[in-house]
């Protein structure tokens, strides 16, 4: 918040600081300095007062000293020459009989961050390492790390490193931990401090003396240690057992990390540790601080990947509180879905049902999709709830329900009868694009069972001119084509109108191309069309919820106790195995989380053998189509304009006609650029891509 009168203030302050009357009155002097610091923290640039403040530094008043140091450390880098003046005062303070003054001077000397001062600082730092007072040693140890980072290239004296190693045996636990920290920084290039057996055992034995911050630091450093024998490993583990159930989440998490890393090849032990840690983690889930709750719930999700049934009996702890923020509610629901079993399914569904009418639409939609995921295992109960929700006639609820039903049908085809019955009449409430797309897909694929399907489509086709969304138009085309295949008499006329509009009047190239494609496809005969358009309706392999194989601990152990599980999308990708192949539309939200994790530019080369160039182009159209409609972009080499695409397509056609006669070995090369790396998302993406391509070529042989 820069003040308007910034310069005015600085001038006034300077006048006050250099006023001899003020200088002679300690209280007034201190108050003036306070004003300077206050102005500084408000964001005003007061660096002009540097020389006045340097003078104020020479005082016996410790409070004033501290204040001046705050100022000097912030602006020293701007005034390297003037800062030299401070050094003398600081060096004098380092000799002060009061240890507090010594540590203060030493700390601020190193905080000035001036490479030119290094030569003056080294001597007091060396003396500081041997100081009688622990508080001075603490500062001196870290001072060496600061010094090293000022000159990362210069070697720190081996004698100092040795001294730091020996200070690991310092009676003061904070000095010990600071030594660890300093050595980690100084020896970064060599991979940090050498963790050998004596050091490890020394650190472990002194762990109890440290406070929780020291404990978590030591435990973190020890992760690098590899015990030499099984006996030693078990000794360490039993020593650490009490820390695993520590009431302090930082210690508990650091201990578990250590457990997982040193027993990485003993899965039984890792699993036992996970079980043991579930108590304290659950307690952290009920912590008063909501940020802590969030961190705990996110880490519980990691645990559940390996031990799915771990917290089954405690499912009630994940019921959402009335006033909890939406982001915690969402994660808790994801956990609830994982915990479903035969005993608790009724309770969990009842609870989730309560959230579906939440005022916050995101919470409501998350609850609905959670019910859908449970529906993979308990379809009857869930469909009953979902159908009931349609009765509310709220547009955001209906949209979420239809999308959920689409996803459910894709995984559990046996649900389709109920879904078909339920869909009647919900097109009136649907407003948003994702919801209508889902409805269209269902109408196309299950058109023969939904009696009103042609009428619903007809209304939409009549309004296609005013339709703004590209995705809806493409989906409408496909749905109408599919419906035509099973109910030709009712659909023929409207299909004609739609194709006519799309080919003749539509300005968007993608829609037009798709319409042209379908038009030509129809020319190839009804059988060909059927082959192309009626692919698979479901993919049960995406799996039921219960009885999923547990993932090995090693898959996530590395990111346990880091910020990664808390970041957005990390779990999103995991939980989102929804999305039917034709809908590479993974995600229902416009500000897709996935696009952060998985932004891939995809260069595809299809060497497809012979017979239908049409099919090949179909696949590319599909791919291109989804690239525009969906947040997850699956694009042919970044940003293909329609013209380019046509060009490319023609080339490929030419290629095919050339090679037409001979049967070439089939092969698809997909190049994905992904940043940041996320194996899970990548794997899912590939599964879906393969399903798409298989669907398209299934009728081939």
């Amino acid at each position, binding site marked *: 918040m820069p003040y308007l009168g910034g310069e005015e203030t600085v001038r006034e302050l300077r006048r006050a600081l250099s006023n001899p009357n003020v200088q002679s009155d300690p209280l007034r002097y201190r108050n003036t300095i306070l004003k300077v610091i206050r102005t500084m923290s408000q964001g005003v640039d007061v660096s002009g007062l540097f020389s006045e403040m340097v003078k104020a530094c020479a005082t016996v008043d410790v409070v004033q000293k501290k204040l001046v140091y705050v100022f000097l450390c912030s602006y020293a880098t701007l005034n390297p020459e003037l800062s030299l003046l401070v050094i003398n005062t600081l060096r004098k303070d380092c000799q002060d009989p009061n240890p507090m003054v010594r540590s203060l001077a030493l700390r601020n000397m190193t905080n000035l961050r001036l490479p030119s001062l290094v030569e003056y600082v080294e001597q007091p730092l060396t003396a500081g390492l041997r100081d009688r007072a622990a508080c001075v040693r603490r500062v001196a140890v870290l001072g060496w790390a600061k010094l090293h980072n000022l000159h990362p290239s210069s070697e720190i004296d081996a004698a100092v490193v040795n001294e730091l190693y020996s200070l690991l045996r310092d009676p003061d636990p904070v000095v010990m931990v600071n030594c660890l920290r300093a050595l980690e920084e100084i020896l970064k290039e060599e991979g940090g401090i050498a963790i050998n057996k004596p050091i490890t055992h020394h650190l472990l034995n002194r762990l109890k003396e440290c406070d929780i911050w020291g404990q978590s630091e030591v435990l973190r450093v020890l992760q690098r240690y590899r015990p030499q024998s099984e006996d030693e490993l078990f000794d360490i583990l039993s020593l650490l057992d009490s820390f695993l159930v520590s009431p302090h989440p930082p210690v508990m998490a650091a201990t578990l990390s250590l457990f997982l890393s040193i027993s990485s090849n003993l899965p039984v032990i890792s699993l036992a540790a996970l079980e043991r840690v579930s108590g304290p983690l659950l307690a952290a889930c009920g912590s008063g601080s909501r940020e802590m709750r969030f961190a705990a719930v996110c880490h519980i999700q990691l645990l559940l990947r390996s031990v799915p049934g771990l917290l089954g009996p405690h499912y009630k702890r994940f019921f959402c509180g009335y006033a*909890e923020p939406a982001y915690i509610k969402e994660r808790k629901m994801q956990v609830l879905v994982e915990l479903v079993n035969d005993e608790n399914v009724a309770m969990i569904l009842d609870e989730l049902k309560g959230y579906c*009418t939440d005022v916050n639409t995101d919470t409501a939609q998350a609850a609905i999709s959670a019910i859908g995921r449970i529906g993979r295992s308990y379809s009857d109960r869930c469909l009953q709830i979902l159908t009931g929700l349609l009765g509310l006639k709220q547009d955001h609820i209906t949209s979420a329900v239809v999308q959920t039903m689409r996803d459910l049908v894709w995984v559990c085809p046996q649900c389709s009868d109920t879904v078909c019955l339920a869909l009647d009449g919900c097109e009136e409430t649907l407003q948003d694009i994702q919801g209508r797309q889902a409805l269209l897909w269902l109408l196309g694929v299950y058109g023969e069972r939904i009696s009103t399907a042609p009428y619903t489509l007809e209304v939409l086709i009549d309004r296609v001119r005013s339709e703004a969304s590209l995705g809806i138009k493409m989906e409408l085309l496909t749905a109408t084509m599919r419906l035509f295949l099973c109910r030709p008499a009712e659909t023929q006329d409207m299909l004609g109108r739609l194709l006519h509009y799309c080919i003749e009047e539509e300005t968007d190239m993608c829609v037009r191309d798709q319409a042209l494609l379908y038009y030509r496809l129809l020319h190839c005969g009804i059988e060909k069309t059927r082959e192309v358009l009626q692919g698979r309706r479901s993919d049960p392999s995406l799996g039921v919820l219960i009885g999923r194989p547990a993932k090995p601990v090693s898959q996530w152990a590395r990111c346990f106790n880091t910020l990664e599980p808390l970041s957005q999308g990390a779990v999103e990708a995991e939980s989102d195995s929804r999305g039917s192949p034709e809908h590479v539309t993974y995600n229902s939200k416009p500000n897709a989380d996935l696009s952060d994790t998985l932004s891939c530019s995809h260069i595809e080369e299809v060497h497809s053998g012979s017979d239908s160039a049409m099919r090949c182009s179909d696949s590319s159209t599909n791919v291109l189509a989804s690239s525009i409609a969906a947040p997850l972009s699956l694009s042919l080499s970044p940003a293909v304009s329609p013209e380019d695409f046509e060009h490319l397509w023609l080339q490929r056609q030419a290629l095919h006609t050339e090679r037409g006669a001979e049967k070439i070995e089939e092969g698809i090369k997909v190049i994905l650029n992904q940043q940041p790396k996320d194996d899970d998302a990548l794997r899912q993406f590939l599964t879906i891509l393969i399903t798409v391509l298989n669907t398209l070529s299934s009728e081939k042989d």
Partner: protein
Amino acid sequence: MISQVFILSSKGDHLIYKDFRGGAGNDIVSIFYEKVTALTGDQPPVVMNHKDIYFVHIRQGGLYWVATTTAGSSPFTITEFLNRLAALVKDYCGSLSEKSVQMNFALIYELLDEIVDYGYIQTTSSDVLKNFIQTEAVTSRPFSLFDLSNVGLFGAETQQSKVAPSSAATRPIQSSREQGGKSEIFVDVIERMTVVIGSNGLLMKADVEGEIRVKCYMPSCSEMRIGLNEEFSIGKSQLRGYGAAVRVDECSFHQAVRLDEFDSHRILRLCPSQGEQTVMQYQLSDDLPSALPFRLFPTIERDNGGRLLMYMKLRCDLPPKSLSQELSSPDQSAELKPQSRAVVWKIARFAGGTQLSALFKLEVPSLSSASMLEVGPVGLSFELPKITATGLQIRFLRLSPIQPGPSQRWVRYVTHSDSYTIRI
């Protein structure tokens, strides 16, 4: 490792900014504020990143407490640190608000300087810190007649002086040293209830999270003994006798608590350090010893004019006070909040054993029978003084050696609603 720490007001004013590692741009604070204000409702704001700088923040006292760090840091450590920092600031400044932080910025810089060095947390124990902190806290306590009323006539103890004023515990810990004034100790038993009652009136879930908090203003106190109920038991199997056992599922103690007398006499021994600390935490699920404090009997219907009628009868099942009889109906107000689509019914105080009812008539456009399903749930938030849901009591509180001069010991009980939901 923490690179910077800063405190922002809810409007984005910079209150405190401290750069521990150097090398951060000047605009880092504004980047954070832009990010945090640009978040939509459902996004988890706890961790955000800008390139490879990660922001972890908590909100307390209406302020943003932010630490910047690297991706590999432990979220538990950083969050706990920020919570602890806020607690320390509260201890030292008396209360946590934009104003108190603004007035005490010098003190907070001093604290930060001692707590963190080069991004590494050094200590957060108030026992250690009190030797280093020199700045005195500035408080803004408006003059209040209430302070005067505490002084009895001719120094006699009045009835009122036996009850600590609610503001008593919101003062800076340091002042006790200089003023030589009141040396006090507060032991608070605080419980938070999470309850879900189904639409059929059955209890679906009841959790209690509790803690014993000690707030110490004693300049020196060597040992304190806190006696809990003797029939206090931990875990499900340990049932002692038939009486009203006070039971909790799980229980954990502060590092400094010595438990040698706990097994036999349920006594906690500790040397409290100045300021606030949580001595014991416990939790109990599903099996409450006493009846729930509130029951709600809702009736929801539609009248002929398409209005929604909500008839709520709320009963307080706490034991009635022996003497105080409230004859008139207490202060109440009700308000419709269109934004959150809720009716807020406020009841200033509610005596045990009584019941209140209210009838809300709502004009809802296009009310259908289906939209009746959308009504609910009812969320109650309340504070019950002098009551613990688990029945945990403090039998005695002894300080040794006996304090010289006047010292006061306060034991307070309170139960809050964390989330008390009644489905309709």
